[in-house]
């Protein structure tokens, strides 16, 4: 039953507090909006992923081999726990596009001649399947084709082994394998669809071109039990039985970069979609408690009168709970509208990184309902304190004027030495703060939370920048990096130096190895460096160069930990290329690095381990300034053994574009939202103290205080409370940044927590801006307060 009169009172009360209403609803809107949008995107993304993986048969495991005859695939199919398998050719390629300076790295993957369902199937986006008449037909990854302006009918050149082929594009397609278009070899952080190509070629053509007639170099499969432990057992069997075919690598499909990034993103979304809204709603509920307590105190005679008239405590309770309900309702509706919009915006953003079919923002009615329920629940919680007082108030007691405000000393007054020295204005300010412990604490908490959020957002961008400059500026100094298919001897390096544009070269040997120490085992890339390395200088996390011994390995701390090794120990090492024989190697040192699983050795030493005198499979080079790279790249790409050419600056720019911009936008939004928490709570708590102290304001005006004089008292209060909040917030912000860095760190790399002192200052400055905005409104209210009227009213 709705009481019309009480409803009218409610609406008028709310209208009188329009600033509170607006700012509170805004905080609730943001909180619910975050929930709606992120829960929505989570469901859009996970649903789309699930369907995609299922319908296009994303595998459970991947086995890379040197050369497995077709019957080996049948053998794997017969293993227990194996549900389905497919053999395929997966070969790295250089793609040459008309009008492009440098060749583009990519992979070629075999597909059946006719479009039949297979594991890791592809979804045609344009054009057709292979015609069956022409061998040299290619289906391109859709994003790659679009970025490079290629369509069915375009012609491209691609290098397979030592032969360049001219291919006709017949179609473009997406695949669950490349949702996040990144080279499966890893080493890159951001997808660069223009610079990484996936080509689907007919099985027969690819087998012929790669000298794999009647054979495959990769087996992908589905398992009955796809858990890590079950698959480890299966891998053991595969390694044992397929050893003659050279098992190079066994891995879980979910560990591939594309799948990994997608899974991590989903986990992140799930966490943020609960943490962020909670923060906003808890602050909103606390602030609402401050407001409602004040309202009930202000209306105690009204409550007494209503009770005397026969209104039950229940109806009074319902009346005051309705204030929260209205805010919850408005905030909830706002949150749904904003959240649904943001869901669309987020999906658009995600589409730049993740390519999935039918990845659209959907309308989830149940999420809306949950959002609304959460909003109402928190808002009603926000009225608890006030309602409790209202319900307990006895009518007779309520009709009497409130007991006069008690005097008494506050905490700082107990320290007379300090108190006596305090200027008068500060005594007033400290009294006001300590006499309202709940209100002051809410304010401190809100500003703490806002500061911590802002700082961690800023620190995240710094961490990313730091990582990028660390990797691309401090560690790497080369202009280009040329990867070779197989290790080559010293002549290749020399040859490259002969190219007129190259000023300096440095070889490297990167060898994937299985490191073993008793039961502990890990597969890592061991990097062989020349003695006076200048173009690539790995550093520890404090920026000191890592010293590479003549003999033995230097491991990252993390890797040493995993393998339970310490300097002086010996590790069993089996390289996955060359001789592939187990050898023993001493551990000479460990270093703390950002890259989690790194191992370094001297290039000669590592060459010997794989059975070579001297070998390199990466050649880094510096070019003379202002020379066109075209000529040398032209010569290089024709070398059959080149599998990739990477430019350092381009990679950095690309990373900056994809991550930097998105990160920048996200962080700005975060700062804005966090700032609104500060703004809203400062505004509301100050509004409440202003309303309590209107008479005081009037008196001060009579005494000749200007609005500015009075504002200084109120802003002094805000200043003290918020300085405490901001300082605590900065401490929490640093802790938060540290724990975020842990959360984002994987085995592969460590996300550094970067705390620049100037960022702390900037963060405080941002807070000051938001708090000042609230104070400006308060100043306006003090200036326009009809103080004479206030004094005329007898409370």
């Amino acid at each position: 039953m709705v009481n019309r009169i009480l409803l009218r009172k409610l609406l008028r009360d709310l209208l009188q507090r329009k600033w509170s209403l607006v700012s509170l609803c805004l905080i609730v809107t943001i909180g619910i909006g975050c929930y709606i949008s992120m829960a929505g995107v989570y469901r859009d993304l996970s649903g789309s992923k699930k369907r995609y993986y299922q319908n296009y048969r994303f595998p459970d495991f991947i086995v890379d081999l040197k050369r497995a005859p077709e019957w080996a695939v049948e053998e794997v199919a017969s293993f227990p726990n194996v549900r389905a398998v497919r053999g395929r050719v997966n070969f790295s390629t250089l793609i040459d596009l008309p009008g492009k300076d440098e060749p583009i790295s990519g992979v070629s993957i075999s597909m059946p001649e006719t479009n039949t369902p297979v594991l890791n199937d592809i979804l045609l986006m344009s054009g057709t399947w292979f015609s069956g008449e022409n061998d040299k037909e290619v289906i391109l990854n859709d994003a790659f084709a679009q970025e490079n302006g290629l369509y069915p009918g375009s012609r491209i050149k691609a290098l397979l082994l030592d032969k360049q082929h001219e291919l006709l594009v017949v179609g473009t397609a997406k695949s669950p394998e490349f949702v996040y278009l990144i080279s499966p070899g890893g080493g890159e952080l951001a997808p660069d669809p223009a610079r990484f190509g996936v080509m689907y070629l007919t099985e027969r053509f690819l087998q012929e071109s790669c000298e794999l007639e009647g054979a495959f170099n990769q087996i992908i499969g589905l398992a009955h039990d796809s858990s890590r432990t079950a698959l480890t057992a299966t891998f053991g069997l595969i390694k044992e039985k397929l050893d003659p075919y050279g098992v190079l690598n066994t891995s879980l499909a979910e560990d591939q970069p594309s799948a990994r990034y997608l899974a991590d993103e989903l986990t992140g979304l799930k966490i943020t979609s609960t943490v962020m809204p909670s923060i906003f709603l808890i602050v909103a509920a606390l602030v609402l408690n401050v407001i409602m307590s004040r309202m009930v105190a202000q209306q105690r005679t009204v409550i007494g009168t209503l009770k005397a008239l026969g209104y039950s405590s229940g109806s009074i309770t319902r009346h005051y709970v309705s204030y929260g309900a209205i805010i919850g309702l408005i905030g909830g509706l706002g949150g749904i509208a904003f959240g649904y919009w943001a869901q669309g915006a987020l999906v658009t953003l995600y589409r730049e990184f993740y390519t999935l079919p039918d990845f659209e923002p959907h309308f989830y009615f149940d999420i809306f309902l949950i959002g609304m329920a959460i909003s109402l629940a928190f808002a009603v919680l926000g009225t608890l304190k006030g309602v409790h007082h209202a319900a307990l108030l006895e009518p007779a007691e309520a009709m009497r004027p409130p007991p006069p405000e008690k005097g008494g000393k506050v905490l700082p007054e107990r320290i007379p030495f300090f108190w006596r020295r305090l200027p008068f204005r500060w005594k007033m300010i400290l009294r006001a703060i300590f006499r309202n412990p709940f209100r002051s604490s809410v304010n401190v908490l809100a500003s703490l939370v806002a500061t911590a959020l802002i700082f961690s957002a800023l620190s995240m961008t710094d961490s990313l920048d730091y990582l990028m400059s660390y990797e691309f500026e401090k560690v790497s100094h080369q202009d280009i990096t040329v990867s070779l298919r197989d290790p080559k001897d010293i002549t290749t390096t020399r040859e490259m130096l002969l190219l007129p544009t190259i000023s300096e070269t440095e070889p490297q040997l990167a060898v994937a190895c299985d490191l073993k120490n008793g039961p502990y085992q890990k597969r890592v890339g061991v990097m062989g460096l020349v003695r006076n390395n200048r173009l690539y200088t790995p550093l520890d996390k404090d920026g000191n160069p890592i010293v590479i011994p003549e003999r033995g390995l230097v491991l990252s701390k993390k890797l040493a930990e995993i393998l339970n090794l310490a300097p002086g120990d010996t590790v069993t090492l089996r390289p996955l290329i060359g001789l592939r024989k187990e050898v023993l190697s001493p551990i000479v040192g460990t270093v703390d690095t950002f890259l989690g699983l790194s191992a370094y050795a001297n290039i000669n030493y590592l060459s010997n381990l794989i059975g070579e005198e001297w070998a390199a499979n990466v050649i880094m080079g510096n070019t003379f300034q202002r020379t066109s790279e075209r000529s040398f790249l032209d010569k290089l790409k024709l070398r059959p053994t080149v599998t990739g050419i990477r430019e350092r600056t381009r990679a950095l720019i690309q990373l900056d574009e994809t991550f930097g911009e998105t990160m920048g936008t996200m962080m700005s939004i975060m700062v804005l939202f966090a700032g609104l928490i500060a703004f809203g709570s400062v505004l509301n708590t100050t509004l409440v103290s202003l309303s309590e102290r209107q008479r005081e304001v009037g008196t001060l005006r009579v005494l000749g205080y200007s609005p500015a004089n009075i504002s200084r008292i109120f802003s002094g209060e805000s200043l003290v409370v918020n300085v405490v909040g901001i300082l605590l917030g900065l401490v929490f912000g640093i802790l938060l940044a540290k724990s975020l860095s842990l959360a984002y760190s994987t085995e592969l790399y460590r996300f550094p927590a970067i705390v620049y002192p100037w960022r702390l200052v900037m963060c405080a400055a941002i807070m000051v801006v938001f708090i000042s905005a609230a104070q400006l409104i308060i100043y306006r209210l003090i200036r326009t307060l009809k103080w004479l009227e206030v004094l005329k009213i007898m409370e």
Partner: protein
Amino acid sequence: MEKKQIILSVKSVSKIYRMGEVDVPALRDATLDIYDGEFLIIVGPSGSGKSTLLNLIGGMDRPTRGRISFQETVLSDLSDKDLTLYRRNRVGFIFQFYNLIPTLTALENVQVAIEITQDTLDPMESLTMVGLQDRADHFPAQLSGGEQQRVSIARALSGNPDFILCDEPTGALDLEASKNILGLLVDLNQKLKKTVVLITHNSAISEIGHRVALIRDGSIHSIRSNEPPKPVEQISW
């Protein structure tokens, strides 16, 4: 009394409050001069416009028509800022309900007034003048009504104002406390030579002033002088 010098004059002042559609005239063509150093009492029934007049004199509000001049300055010509300065430096105000700040001690309530001005009395001295030196650390809630009003007088005094305006200063006090307060005000007038303007609806009080202005329906009806004013001890109601 020797030569009378006008420090403030009210000329044909009207004040009309707009309450939605209706105009409420609170003052109509009121004219009154206030002399330097006098104790002026404005008496009239409730609702006759006393407070309105006092507020205009005190620079807390502006007249709808007419002019109020303090020495050479016309108050209605002043900006809000200058009006604030006028209140700060020239006027001391005493209210019926004291309007002390509940979270400040007696001494601090006096300090409040001098915080913003230069030419001031020592707050402790002001408190001593009203006989409250021993209660300086008490909060308003710990003081009686009469004591609170005394704090309020000390506060009005400490800014060293040209005149003291009192709006029903004894309206909430019993006879004993009232006489105490009135005695203090007379002392201020005689010993410190402060001009005091006091408004009341209680005609018994009017005996103690040098002059008494009678206000009715928003205009000054008549002015008389008490020759001599009655000592505070002799009045009663």
